[in-house]
């Protein structure tokens, strides 16, 4: 009986339509026992609003392309269950904050991707294909520090959650700085000093106010706050040594 009752309940879903000057449009969607936010969006697009634009790919929390703002918080929608985030059966779904809107729930990720370059994030090795692979001790402090931030899926949730980014568009943001921190701890990287100089330069780690929103919202539970704090410590202690 309970199951039948649940399946006849409806969710009120307010979805952002249009660009910056768009508006929220309300749809009614059937509430089901197991339902993610991405399921809701897909159902609206397939059965009610074929013109609804949104972005997704893997649907299993690997690609990081389906991030949106759900009830005011950035989330990966493919792994966010409706039951966890709906307020009395109401959902408000908008594109990510801090990024230009293209259409409906799709935003332009170029400013986010650009921050990686500005953080000095491209890897450049010291060896050629003719050299033996570098030996990296998995227990060394540098490797463990790099390992802690390596799994970033580039979903831009941290960038969207960050208040400093919303105040200062010149700020590199948590993901770019996290990437810079992993490179600074990568002993194979040829120019760690150059990476640090860029990550510490204008709009770099010194702009972080340590609100911790990036860490609170990271869907895979990375700790960009700690990476940024690590960069700040480098300014005092110098580049991390491999111990």
């Amino acid at each position, binding site marked *: 009986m309970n199951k039948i009752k649940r399946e006849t309940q409806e969710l009120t879903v307010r979805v952002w339509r249009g660009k910056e000057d768009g508006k929220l449009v309300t749809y009614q969607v059937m509430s089901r026992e197991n339902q993610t936010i991405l399921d809701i969006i897909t159902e609206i697009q397939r059965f009610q609003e074929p013109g609804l634009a949104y972005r997704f790919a893997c649907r299993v929390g690997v690609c990081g392309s389906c991030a949106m703002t759900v*009830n*005011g*918080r950035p989330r990966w929608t493919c792994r966010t269950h409706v039951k966890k985030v709906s307020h009395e059966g109401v959902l408000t779904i908008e594109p990510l904050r801090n990024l230009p809107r293209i259409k409906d729930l799709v935003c332009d990720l170029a400013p986010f991707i650009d921050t990686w370059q500005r953080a000095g994030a491209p890897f450049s090795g010291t060896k050629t294909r003719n050299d033996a692979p570098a030996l990296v001790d998995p227990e060394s402090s540098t490797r463990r520090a790099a390992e802690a931030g390596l799994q970033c899926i580039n979903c831009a949730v941290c960038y969207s*959650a960050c*208040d400093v980014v919303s105040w200062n568009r010149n700020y590199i943001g948590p993901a770019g700085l996290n990437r810079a921190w992993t490179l600074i701890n990568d002993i194979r990287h040829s120019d760690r000093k150059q990476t640090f100089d860029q990550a510490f330069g204008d709009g770099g780690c010194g702009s972080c*106010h*340590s*609100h*911790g*929103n990036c*860490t*609170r919202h990271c869907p895979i539970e990375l*700790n960009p*706050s*700690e990476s940024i*704090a690590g960069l*700040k*410590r480098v300014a005092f202690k110098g580049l991390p040594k491999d111990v």
Partner: protein
Amino acid sequence: MNPLRNHKSYLAAIGHRVSGIALALFLPFHFLLLGSALDGAQGLDRFLVYTDLTPVKVAEWGLVMMLSVHLFFGIRVLFLEFTRWPGHVNDLAGWVVPCCIAALFVGTVFVIQVL
């Protein structure tokens, strides 16, 4: 309230910043006043009579509170950025209430001293 700002760390950051700005505005006047003593006690005494006025005492209490809020939230930031332990971002959010209580304690001591 914006859900992204509805957490203790945000309140701590805003408290630290607002108290810092208030102190930055106050301190030049404070040093100007102290500097007036360089030309003799009379210059400073001319201002010190105002400290007996109730509004000035309330303002002084506010400044002491700002100083202590800035101090304790500043210590929290230093721990956040210079120390490492698992989950410390959330742990240090738990410091916000104790920091506020410590600042209130300092403010209370000041009030007792003044009364």
